[in-house]
């Protein structure tokens, strides 16, 4: 195989790299009040929503882009982006899936996400977000029977304004950091979930994010509320076409768990990572924060981060309710020129709060990976504990692995334990697997999956299989 052929083969690895030729409606390029009004207007939002956005924008204008993260990137011209892009066919909202543009259905089919309910995916309800808008939500009726609300954010603003008003921005306020505030000003769509008191959601809820249009940022906003004693498991998946430009994805996700409620949030992030030379790819700058508001509540984040040119996110838990629990399980893989700076924050405020962090970082090629985390035990958080385990695996000596945990303990009744290791796959292990007939890439895949096992186990079955494959694929070309 010559180099070009090899390159083509490599590109095939990112099987989601196609783009859909579809007519779009876009907001004018740039970021200003008019664009925000345009977005709010096209979504027929009430005034309070527009005010929320404009307040955030006022704040945004005073904020400086942060620069403390490890992966640096060229300056983003926020005036040179489109902040809204929607398939034209979505302009008059289709009433049912049958009315949905066949091109869109086809796109999701290619991605392995069938939207037609007859092709049900192991009983997972899906909300599909295409560029800036939600195009379809499946299994709505079945969920409605139990009082569960699962719809796009735009729809929730129209149909459930009281819930949205009550909770939106309570975990990530409009006055938060740069990217979160930008999101508050310009967010376009996303998913909304409300699980009523005492209800255990009977199926996995899932959102599938797809960036299609070029020069477009994706700013979705997800809000999940688990009322007293309820339970929900939520999954998100992400892909984008291969483009030479870098595209910005700055989402906000807010979770609220009331007394005795539990939210499990899993992410399999496979945005386009750029080519082998580091050209193109998504900037994945996402703010995810969960509030364990009630006593005995639990929020668990699980993430498998294999895509994006730069991943920069810290899904966090604020453990406010007494006896609440926060968990963070993460696999982050970087290859070629990818960079990741990710981890979590566990803020212990209530009594007897517990948190657990398990992070597995794998870097190969010329990539760079940072685990950054904060464990903060407040003086009122009596009898709280944290356990953190960060393991890094390096493949080759052109990549980097960094562990930066911040630990703050202001409480004598509390215990914090932190462990971290950095290692590599040994030649002996590889030889052993190869002697048993596995080729080097299969061997690496197997060993790395073993390394990540603790985290993979946290994923729902269907996603775990997908994630295991992804772990193997992401590291292809990194051995030998």
């Amino acid at each position, binding site marked *: 195989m010559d180099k070009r052929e090899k390159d083509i083969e490599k590109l095939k690895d990112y099987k989601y790299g196609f783009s859909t030729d579809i007519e779009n409606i876009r907001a004018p390029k740039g970021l200003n009040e008019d664009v925000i009004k345009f977005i709010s207007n096209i979504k027929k939002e009430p005034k309070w929503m527009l005010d929320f956005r404009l307040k955030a924008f006022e704040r945004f204008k005073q904020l400086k882009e942060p620069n*403390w993260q490890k992966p640096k990137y060229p300056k983003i011209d926020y005036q040179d982006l489109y902040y809204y892009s929607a398939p034209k066919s979505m302009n008059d909202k289709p009433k049912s899936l049958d009315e949905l543009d066949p091109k869109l259905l086809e796109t999701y089919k290619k991605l392995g996400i069938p939207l037609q309910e007859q092709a049900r995916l192991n009983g997972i309800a899906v909300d599909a977000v295409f560029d800036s808008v939600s195009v379809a939500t499946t299994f709505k009726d079945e969920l409605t029977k139990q009082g569960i609300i699962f719809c796009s954010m735009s729809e929730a603003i129209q149909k459930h304004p009281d819930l949205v008003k009550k909770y939106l921005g309570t975990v990530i306020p409009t006055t938060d950091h740069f990217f979160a505030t930008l999101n508050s000003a310009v967010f376009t769509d996303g998913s909304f979930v409300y699980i009523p008191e005492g209800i255990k959601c009977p199926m996995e809820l899932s959102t599938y994010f797809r960036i299609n249009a070029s020069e477009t940022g994706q700013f979705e906003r997800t809000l999940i509320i688990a009322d007293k004693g309820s339970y929900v498991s939520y999954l998100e998946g992400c892909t984008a076409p291969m483009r030479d430009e870098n595209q910005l994805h700055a989402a906000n996700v807010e979770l609220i768990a009331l007394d005795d409620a539990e939210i499990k949030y899993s992410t399999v992030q496979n945005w386009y990572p750029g080519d082998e030379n580091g050209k193109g790819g998504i900037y994945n700058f996402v703010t995810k924060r969960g509030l364990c508001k009630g006593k005995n509540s639990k929020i668990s984040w699980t993430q498998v981060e294999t895509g994006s040119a730069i991943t920069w996110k810290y899904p966090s838990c604020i453990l406010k309710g007494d006896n609440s629990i926060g968990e963070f399980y993460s696999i982050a893989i970087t290859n070629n020129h990818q960079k990741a700076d990710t981890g979590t924050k566990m803020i212990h405020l209530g009594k007897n709060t517990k948190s657990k962090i398990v992070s597995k970082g794998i870097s190969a090629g010329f990539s760079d990976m940072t685990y950054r985390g904060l464990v903060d035990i407040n*003086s009122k958080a009596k009898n709280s504990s944290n356990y953190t385990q960060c393991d*890094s695996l*390096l*493949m*080759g*000596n*052109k*990549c*980097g*692995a*960094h*562990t*930066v*945990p*911040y*630990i*703050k*303990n*202001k*409480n*004598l*009744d*509390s*215990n*914090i*334990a*932190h*462990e*971290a*290791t*950095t*290692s*590599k796959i040994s030649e002996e292990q590889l030889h052993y697997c190869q002697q048993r007939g596995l080729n080097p890439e299969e061997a690496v895949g197997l060993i790395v999956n073993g390394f990540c096992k603790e985290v993979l186990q946290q994923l729902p079955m269907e996603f775990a299989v997908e994630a295991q494959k992804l772990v193997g694929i992401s590291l292809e070309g990194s051995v030998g």
Partner: protein
Amino acid sequence: MTEQIKTDFDKIVKTSAFSEKDVEQKKIYLNKFLKTGFPTRKLENWKFSDLSQIIKKSIGELSFYNDYSFSNKVDTSIFVEGLEHNKIVFINGRVEKVDFTHEDHDKIEINSDFKFVNRLEHNNSLLSLNNAFSNKCYKITIKKNYSLKKPLVVYHSTNNKIKSKNINLKLEFQLEQNSSLRLIDLFNDGAENNFINIFYNFDLKENAILKNYKIDKLQNKNIRYSYNNIEQDNNSVSETFVLSSGSNFSKNEINCNLKGEYSSAFVNGIFSLNEGQHHEIRTIINHLVENTKSYQLIKSVLGENSKSAYQGKIFVDSKAQKTDGYQLSKAILLDETSEFNAKPELEIYADDVKCSHGSASGSLDENSIFYLMSRGLSYKQSKELLINGFLLDVVEKITDTEIKNLVKNMIGLKE
């Protein structure tokens, strides 16, 4: 501050015998310092300790002028008894005594007018301050194949003649091939509310051994900053022990460049704090070539309103295969008002390395206290015994038996 510092600087220039060139150089450092001032929490390195605020709160207005034209009387009662040693005595930042009576004089070279070469370009404003205001810099060279027979004790003394002053001092040590030095820094303060800013530079050639023990034990109301830069060639060993306990505020930074194969660095530290004290240790160990090793153990015992911070970074260059780096920090919080902060950091670019860190903090184990009490000890005794045991294994890491016993006696640790 700016006006005060400029006036003080001019005053120093007038009363000292600096050459014109020196003054030019010092001016550059002064301006560099003025640009940023004292570090604030906005700097990542000072995240846990906002020096600017700390100085403002506990000292208020600092004076930067020191008159070094008069000598101070050396109070011999401060000297360590029962240990023969060489001495360097600083009083209020002025060198009053340099005494190597126990050594072969042709094996040690003392240069009293050394120009501190600034290899530490880390944008450290305190280094600029030090360079602008420090009076004399001694360079001590230990010649090839020579091991100092007795330890060198550097006495850092202050007396009540000074208050609200900034004192800057620095020393440069060169350890030539196969040489060795045991260095004890003893802090002995009669003065209050001063900011003491100390820079040491160590250059360790092949097979050289440095053991540096910093003992800040006596309660005092000063703010202290101390920076050790250690450069290490092949097979050299550095051992640094810090007892961080006496000053109101103290920050020890240790930057170690392992640039020769098979060189190794050990840092062990104890924070024993109380009554509003706030101490920090920050280490950066740079593993730059193959087969280097570092080991760090830091323990804190924190009483009322006290706060300790440990920032430890292990950097492994892509060339530094077979690095062995280890870091452990543990803290016991004795009181609801105490606070422990840590940032143990690994930055690794080589794949065949063994690096790990651990950190744990919590209260004294009530079960152990209960166990001891059931054997007849009082609550207070049980607590002391457990703290004693907790700290003892750090002191046990001191490889020099003579000094280990000295340290044990000083801090009242029992075996």
